């Protein structure tokens, strides 16, 4: 018999964390159901990585409550982590070991026997597209392969929940797409995925729900489609080139919302046909007509200022 109340994979209430004078997490609430793929988006310094560290019990919060797979964190974080896999932001593979040894040694940290890990290694390498490379040294792997091995390492304990901090940062498009395919497969297997990213495209493709985080707070949350529908007009027209000023003055009468950012004009609306038609007489101007996406929402909510 199933329990009447489903235990959240991750439930966070009122989470706060301060480093010296700066409060980097300022009251975060999360409720992630089993089987969801949840994306935490935000500019650099928004508090995403700190939030993940707190949820894993690697750092003590200054306030709030965390339950990871039903276990209170940090009090019983270690028990929770037994059923969690983590893909950290920075490469932490063991350079002294081969591919297979990396999995063996990591599996031991979960209390698994060498025999049990040995049985899994073949399947994990297959999954990571590293079959036949079991005895290669780590330095022989490309960036994409290292990332996939890190993902395989995070699966050595057959986790219910995977936590990934920027799983595809620094990868080329081929490597990124391969990771996405693997993550989709993991989601199909019913595992819960929690990831941070600044690739909006990644979040839109993979995530059932996303939260946009800025300055330590979640400022918007929902399914990618509904977030776009809620915050942005469905059509976007980007225009740049000589004579932009003159055309912009006209465009203001043709579309509901016009915004200038540096040398580019953005037009937003349910229908931008009129503006599009007016571009026919402006051969000097370059333009891009596209549907609104999560990046538009992100930039609207977090602003276009650089964050370092």
């Amino acid at each position, binding site marked *: 018999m199933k329990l009447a109340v489903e235990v959240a994979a991750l439930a966070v209430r009122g989470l706060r964390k301060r480093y010296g004078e700066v409060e980097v997490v300022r009251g975060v609430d999360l409720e992630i159901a089993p089987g969801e793929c949840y994306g935490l988006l935000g500019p650099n310094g928004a508090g995403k990585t700190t939030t993940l560290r707190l949820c*894993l019990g*690697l*750092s003590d919060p200054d306030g709030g409550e965390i339950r990871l797979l039903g276990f209170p964190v940090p009090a019983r974080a*270690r028990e929770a982590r037994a059923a969690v896999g983590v893909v950290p932001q920075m490469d*932490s593979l063991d350079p*002294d070991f081969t591919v297979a040894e990396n999995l063996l040694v990591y599996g*031991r940290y*979960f209390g698994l026997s060498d025999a049990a890990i040995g049985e899994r290694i073949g399947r994990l390498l297959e999954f990571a597209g590293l079959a036949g490379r079991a005895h290669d040294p780590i330095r022989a792997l490309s960036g994409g392969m290292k990332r996939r091995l890190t993902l395989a390492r995070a699966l050595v304990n057959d986790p219910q929940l995977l936590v990934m901090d920027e799983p595809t940062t620094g990868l080329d498009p081929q490597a990124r797409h391969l990771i996405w395919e693997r993550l989709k497969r993991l989601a199909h297997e019913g595992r819960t995925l929690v990831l941070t990213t600044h690739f909006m495209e990644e979040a839109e493709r993979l995530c059932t729900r996303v939260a946009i985080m800025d300055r330590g707070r979640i400022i918007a949350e929902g399914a990618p489609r509904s977030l776009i529908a809620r915050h942005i007009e469905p059509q976007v027209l980007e225009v740049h080139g000589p004579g932009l000023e003159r055309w912009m003055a006209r465009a203001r009468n043709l579309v509901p919302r016009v915004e200038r950012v540096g040398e580019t004009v953005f037009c937003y609306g349910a229908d931008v046909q009129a503006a599009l038609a007016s571009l026919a007489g402006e051969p000097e101007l370059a333009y891009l007509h596209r549907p609104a996406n999560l990046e538009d929402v992100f930039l609207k909510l977090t602003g276009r200022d650089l964050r370092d």
Partner: protein
Amino acid sequence: MPPARLYAPPALSLRFVPVWRRNFLVWRKLALPSLLANLADPLLMLFGLGYGLGAVIGTLQGTSYFAFLAGGFLASSTMYAATFEALFSAFSRMHVQRTWEAIVNAPMDLEDVLAGEWLWAATKAFAAGVCMLAVVSALGFAQWPMALGALAAVALVGLAFAAVGLAVNALATGYDFFSYYLTLVLTPMMMLSGVFFPVEKLPEALQAVAVALPLYHGIELARPLLAGHLPQGAAAHAAVLAAYAVAGYYAATVLTRRRLLK
């Protein structure tokens, strides 16, 4: 982190074993060059000074100068082996390779990592001590079975310096930081602890300093045991080394928590 958690005594658990095994697996791949690196320096010094300077000095405290030095180097080579592992190697794993970070993402606590590192560095130091003893014994300068007791002294020296080394590691900003500890702490300790000459030859004020140093107590144990007789005040010497091990490990725990569990 609340002070109650920061200053809590370290929790001990068998979970240190996979950390120890990780380091052992790496070492197994490079055991020979690693032991050579630990032993080349003290052995060259031992032969050079033992035979060269020994010819000038003759006997010291009733034994050959070579035998006198052998006891000192047995302890000091163990000290350096433990120290290098707890400083440079542990720092690589903590800071450069992010190995510790990966481990605590598994169901492991920072304290499990630290315990594994401590006992690993002590093990490696013990291995260096055993090899040193084997060489000294092959040359006929170890009186068995009493020399076995010297191994117990070596184990204590390893535990003490591995623990203190990990505390220094927790404060390090980079590899260069370790030069301070090596040149300002260990080199003077080597001079003051009776490796090269009896501590009684030092001015009284410096003798008082020597008595507070862990290496001094290691040598006071190792040297007579190697020569085949029981050291005077063995229990007290062992107690000082144990105290350094315990206090050093506690300091390492608190400082590492402060550094990594922010």
